[in-house]
């Protein structure tokens, strides 16, 4: 008894939907849709330079993050493993310092024209 009722409901729904079925939009749909597409293309104007930059940035971001992490970990390990004072970046770029504190006197001299022992602050 239940099955015929179910079929009848389904048939009723099919008939009802078919009765209001339309296989097309109002006349002129083609042109209205075309206008909308044209307006959209004009507004978006893709691919824009900005979206290109964004796309590139999105691709490079994971690489940059990974490189930073590797460098940070390597720097931390290098810092604990040795007493070298120059950073990993400095060493990688060949800016390694000798770790000799006397070298900083050159800097003092060049800035203040004084030897390091004569501190410019409170030297009066």
């Amino acid at each position, binding site marked *: 008894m239940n099955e015929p009722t179910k079929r009848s409901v389904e048939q*009723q729904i*099919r008939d009802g*939907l078919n009765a209001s079925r339309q*296989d097309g939009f109002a006349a002129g749909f*083609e042109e209205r*849709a*075309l206008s909308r597409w044209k307006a959209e293309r004009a507004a978006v104007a893709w691919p824009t330079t900005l979206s290109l930059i964004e796309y590139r940035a999105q691709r490079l971001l994971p690489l940059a993050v990974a490189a930073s992490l590797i460098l940070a970990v390597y720097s931390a390990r290098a810092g604990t493993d040795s007493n070298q004072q120059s950073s990993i970046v400095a060493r990688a770029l060949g800016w390694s310092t000798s770790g000799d504190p006397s070298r900083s006197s050159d800097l003092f001299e060049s800035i203040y024209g004084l030897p390091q022992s004569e501190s410019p602050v409170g030297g009066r």
Partner: protein
Amino acid sequence: MDLEANQAERALVARAAVGDDDAFRQLVRAHESAVASVVIAMLGVGDDAEDVGQETFVRLLRALPTYRGDSSVRTFITRIAVNASLDMIAKRKRSARFIRLGTSDDDITATASDPSSEFSSQHDRQEEANIVRRAVDSLDGKHRAVVVLRVLEERSTKEAAELLGVPEGTVMSRLTRAMKKLEAILRPKIDR
């Protein structure tokens, strides 16, 4: 559809996407009936359906870079039409919830669920169609989509599942639930 015809259709879509107006018109002529059938069944006749119909074609052209050609353009555009209709139903629901203007889906539910005011013997076929329409409108989007695809479009469960991007079991359970609800609304008519 054979491979060659599908490739020709893809080429047509590609031409339309880069601004070939004639290609766009051809595309609309070829698929307007399929899009209109689904969209109007989902939303009813009116401005929303027209809006979603246009949006469907625009989305098709925008989605071209992601279209891998593993389904026909007809299937692809039907999927877009269903999704755009679901978006519109969600939008209507939001408007109804926050603005409470016009007829919301909830109002339709209330009307369609009231058997006392419906189904008299003098109602003609169009009236009956309107009642079915309102009953279908009372379903939420995902259940409505299943009814439209399975009952009106007579798609198989597998096809409906592909179009909706859900497992076949989900299509079946949604259909069962939807039919139960529709039966509860429409049974008074059958029992007469």
